[in-house]
């Protein structure tokens, strides 16, 4: 049979041929992530922004600031129908979007990751940072893509100086132009620790491949491990995995590859 046809109609069999040789159809080995490309300051209209590509997956993250009583980070992930035909059906995207939004919000607000006191600006007001992540092209591994983009955007964020808004009765703050009486300093956002994600997918033969593309994700379960300060968060939705072994098998691999991710984020 024609290779293209086989890939399309029986991807499982198609993959089996490659995996037998320890390779994947795109030429990667089993434990090889795709090339990552990060661009900071991708947008002028956000407090901080970053665009990230993982192979053919790409996402854009932008940070917007609001003032509220409790300072925190709120992440919202959008998988619009333009990023893949998989998400034309809204229902299908919604589950994943709310999973990603909630999980990333939780991870980034962890005490060991983010110190919320740096968001306090004046009196009762604190910054609430809305991190909006829009996937522009979806080719698997949304978890790593979105989390890394969010981290890069937050590290890029500069909080502007604030002043009391003139001419309003209620105490409102406004972004201060240069040389005015400021009540809250401009500052750069700092993360205490970076939560670094690594995702694996389980292939039909039982092997785990790192950084799966969309086809690989559809073939089996995927597990996202997230290393925060030497400890782990695990997200594994559906699909079998050997109960006794797989974490011991994957955790060391994940640990080494998070070092590479840290380098990517450190790169200016």
């Amino acid at each position: 049979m024609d290779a293209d046809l086989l890939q399309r109609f029986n991807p499982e069999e198609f993959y089996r041929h490659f995996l037998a040789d320890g390779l994947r159809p795109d030429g990667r080995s089993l434990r090889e992530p795709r090339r990552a490309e990060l661009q900071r300051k991708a947008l002028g209209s956000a407090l901080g922004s970053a665009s990230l590509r993982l192979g053919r997956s790409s996402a854009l993250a932008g940070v917007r600031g609001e003032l509220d009583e409790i300072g925190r980070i709120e992440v919202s992930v959008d998988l619009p129908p333009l990023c893949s035909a998989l998400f034309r059906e809204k229902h299908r995207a919604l589950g994943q979007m709310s999973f990603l939004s909630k999980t990333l919000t939780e991870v980034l607000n962890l005490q060991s990751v983010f110190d919320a006191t740096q968001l306090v600006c004046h009196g009762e007001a604190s910054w609430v940072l809305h991190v909006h992540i829009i996937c522009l092209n979806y080719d698997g591994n949304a978890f790593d893509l979105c989390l890394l983009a969010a981290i890069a955007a937050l590290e890029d964020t500069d909080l502007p100086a604030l002043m009391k808004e003139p001419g309003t009765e209620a105490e409102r703050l406004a972004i201060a132009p240069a040389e005015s009486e400021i009540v809250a300093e401009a500052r750069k956002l700092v993360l205490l620790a970076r939560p670094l994600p690594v995702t694996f997918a389980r292939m039909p033969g039982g092997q785990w491949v790192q950084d799966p593309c969309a086809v690989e994700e559809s073939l089996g379960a995927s597990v996202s491990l997230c290393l925060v300060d030497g400890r782990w968060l695990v997200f594994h939705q559906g699909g079998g995995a050997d109960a006794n072994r797989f974490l011991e098998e994957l955790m060391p691999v994940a640990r080494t590859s998070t070092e590479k991710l840290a380098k990517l984020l450190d790169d200016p």
Partner: protein
Amino acid sequence: MALLGEPPVQPERQDFSAPLRYAPKAPPQRSVRTRRKEETRPCQLRINAVPNAAGSAYLEQGRTKILATVYGPRQAERDRQQARAEGQLFVEVHFAPFCARDFNKEESEKRAVLYNSILQSTLESVILLERYGKTAFDVTLLVLEDDGAVLTGSLAAASLALADAKVEMRDLIAGATVHLKPRDASAAGGEELLLDCDRAEELAMPEKSAVLHLGLCPARGLVCLLHSVGPLPPKPFEQMVLLAKDTAEAFGAEMRRCLQDQVHRRAEKKRARSFGEILEVDSSFLDEDMAVLDDGYG
């Protein structure tokens, strides 16, 4: 903290004063036009920005950034849309929440509805829909950054994406936006025509100013969209249309060149492959026409 299931009960707010939650107002930007009045901002076009889509284009004009994708032709759904002899087009415009500093969700949704209908009817007039019976196209536009001239930019991006998807069309559509600044009461001189204003300029426009959006089919030389808001006396109107037409023609030539480049690149790659030469392609950045087997619609 609940893992899943019902959200925890929020403690009720004690004070009923005005809610604090708001986005701090940004200082008014001074609009300084460093360009000449009839000069556009630098523009960049890129085709095939979203490899998953059947066709896509990315347009950057000044700081305005627009991404357009086309999925389809796909089978028209039998339940909702009765299969018709003519193909159908579904246009959707989205504004990203970070597209502007003073982003307002409701306002941008209203704008999106207006743009949807304008773009839909304009694009329908150039696509040969009668050749796509019982099928449908989804055209999605995402405004990543809004810095003026979004409507005409979207139009150009959408038509490039359609061309990239190899949809049969009568022509491309190039667009231009012209603002009319009325005569200053104090200063001498007539009205001012300003081409391709950015957002700061738009916001700084005085009352009684007008804006004109023009869409032009460059090869046929026909106007396919004319949309204006504000009082327009006949004489400056004529000048505005002419200015917009000239700009759109130049813009159309650039779009054409961009498409030709893409075709050449594809042809080159195909030739290289057919001669059995070794392709030096980074495996993780597989090129679009090798990697995309599936536009998702079977």
